[in-house]
């Protein structure tokens, strides 16, 4: 099983407090929903293997706490992340406005500039929408992010959000192959070895 895993990706979920980061994750990993989910302390961690275009990727997902008092801890998780999911609540305009701050923080602490970003507008099941879909889309385009609206409660778009993110990461080879951690490297090494041999054969023929 583990043999087919192409790579392990570090995914980070960030956003204001109460926008539903943990709920999104819980829906994605355990397919459950808890309306009374307690606030995250520090960071939560979950692993899930998903298959995108026939490639299996193991996702190590770090779900950060949105509460201000844990904000100091957030920089610890940015390092080495390949993908980040930026969440806002479509019913709370302030969570959308604060996205700029989050992007700034991302810029500051992230160790790579080609990190794949996904903007998720959560809680679309609610009726009192305060942020229009187009606004979100515009913002995402402006900052070259992927965009989706979702609802952890109704399961809308959750799977899609993660899949698209992973797909994009896998399509950006430099992003995960350069990591010395997993199969990606071994594969490329093998290819190199093969290439080297082929070259050797060619030379000797001359």
């Amino acid at each position, binding site marked *: 099983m583990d043999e087919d895993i192409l790579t392990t990706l570090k995914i980070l979920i960030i956003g204001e407090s109460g926008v539903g980061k943990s709920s999104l994750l819980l829906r994605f990993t355990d397919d459950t929903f808890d309306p009374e989910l307690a606030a995250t*302390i520090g960071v939560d961690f979950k692993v899930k293997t998903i298959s995108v275009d026939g490639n299996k990727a193991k996702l190590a997902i770090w779900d950060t706490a949105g509460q201000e008092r844990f904000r100091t801890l957030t920089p*610890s998780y940015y390092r080495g992340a390949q993908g980040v999911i930026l969440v806002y609540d479509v019913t709370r305009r302030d969570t959308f406005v604060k996205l700029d701050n989050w992007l700034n923080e991302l810029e500051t602490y992230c160790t790579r500039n080609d990190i794949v970003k996904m903007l998720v507008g959560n809680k679309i099941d609610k009726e009192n929408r305060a942020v229009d879909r187009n606004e979100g889309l515009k913002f995402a385009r402006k900052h070259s992010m992927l965009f989706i609206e979702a609802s952890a409660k109704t399961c809308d778009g959750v799977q899609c959000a993660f899949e698209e993110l992973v797909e994009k990461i896998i399509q950006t080879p430099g992003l995960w192959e350069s990591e010395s951690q997993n199969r990606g490297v071994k594969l490329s090494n093998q290819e190199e070895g093969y290439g080297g041999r082929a070259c050797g054969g060619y030379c000797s023929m001359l």
Partner: protein
Amino acid sequence: MAEEQKWSRWAWRRLRMAEETDAKEPCELVGKQLGEPGRFAYAALCGISLACLFPEKEQSSFRMEFIEGLVKWLELSDAVLPAMTAFTSGLGGEGAETFAQILLKDPVLSNNPVIITQDLVSFSLKDGYYDARARVLICHVTWLLRIPLEELEVLEESLLESLKEQKEEASETAEASRRKKERKRKLRRYLMIGLATIGGGTVIGLTGGLAAPLVAAGAATIIGSAGAAALGSTAGIAILASLFGAAGAGLTGYKMKKRVGAIEEFEFLSLTEGKQLHITIAITGWLCTGKYGSFTAPWSSMLQSSEQYCLAWESKYLMELGNALDSLLNGFVNMMAQEALKFTVLSGIVTALTWPTSLLTVANVIDNPWGVCLNRSAEVGKHLAQILLSRQQGKRPVTLIGFSLGARVIYFCLKEMAQEKDCEGIIEDVVLLGAPVEGEAKYWKAFTKVVSGRIINGYCRGDWLLSFVYRTSSAQLKVAGLQPVILDDRRMVNMDLSSVVNGHLDYMKQMDTILKAVGIKTKECRLEEKGNPSPFSSQGERRQPTADGESQEEESTLGDDDSISHDHWSWQPVPSEGLHSSDRNSDLAHPEDSEFPGSLDASRDENPAGLEKPLPTNPLPCPDSAAHVLGGTFLPCPDTNDLKNQAAHQGLD
């Protein structure tokens, strides 16, 4: 002189500060003082450190138990467990530095980061079992927080100091409780019960010896004054009795009840008077008539911990061997020949045939006692293993150090322990000097399970005597005492002592210098530590900026290119001219490791991602008791530059 005063004032202030903190919050644990983010960072830092120090599969249960216990201890919600589990299994390690910074910035710690160390010690001792791995972890975390490791020792000592100081007071308490029960009990039993009551009602086997009741009597006082509040909560007596061995008398009380195997003599001699939470056992390699006629003689300057023992074993045979060695070197083989031999050995073309016939004709002088001692040392090693496994020394970390056949005793001790269950967490560091044992890495692999801190192999390439006595056993071409052991593990540290050790006999004669070279504390070092004011005063000043931001610290650490492998001891700002010697261990063992300390500092500020990889492999960030000396105590070593050259030379080989 003024500087000295300055230091002592500083140290005193720090102690006062710690006391004041205790006074203000008498029973307040760090768990309650720190905010939730702080506690989270603290636990995460421990988790990451555990993953980096003990990545082995067989250690996973220790890692998990430790972190789960810590989460409870810090009163964190169980919801953090998945993240902590991820940290302890090696994920998210890149955040270690950030967590450390966060923790240092916490207002509770701002002036006194040593609280964390203190809390960790209390946590580790709470079950009456000071695991060697826990101590290594504490050292590591202490290092990550830029706290000089002396602080840890001071802390551990203060635990015991308070025991001694409060002895009288405690016995008064015992007296009081004795009176209460006077009517009901017979006089003989009062003391015992009174003591047990202090500890929280747990009546335990205190009958064993003298030390245990004494230790137990102080249990209540440790709780308040030394800040180890939690120790007292349930069964202080049980904890302390367990730490020091319930038998009280400990190692010196050990008597070989019957002849074990072929062993005729096996006894622990006390080298120091003190008591300490970790102990050191030194093992002598041979005895000679005259100055080095006793087992304790070579270790006279050693002061690795204030509780040290020396193993006396098979003196009859060791004396025979020593005299044979002596007569061989002083009589049969002249100096010229010895020098020639040294270089022959150095050149590495030794085969049985190249030995001079003059030497071969006298070979029987040495071969017989050597052979006898080889066998005996193996037996003694196995016996030592059984003693350590049965915790005669109490449940606290042990450091073993030995030269020549003494190192062989250690080798076999480790080998025996590795085969047993529950062998982990007993041994902290081992130091093998000029060890006449197999140097093939695969035989040493098993030791990583037993040793929590470092495995130091001190060798000398030109040790022709060792080479000579091994000439016949062609199977063992690799002898640890002659070359590095190429074991890829953070614990393994090889040290070329060629510049200090001119021949095998020097292991005994130059022990003082060797101890300094391998980073074992000596009396001189301890004095220096106290007497040398600059490291401490500047470190006191420096700690403040570290808490606020790292820019200044970077300046101090990256300023000196030469001593790059020292940079991470930034809190121990030793003048650069004295630094080189400690490059040696990193240079020698694993070249990739030697880059690390530098890269750590670089990564701290410039390339944060760089931290990710080196951390788990590097032996240095686990500054155990031996390692942490590297920064400060090398100064007196006269051969430092030579050693460095040697190291560089070594690298070319």
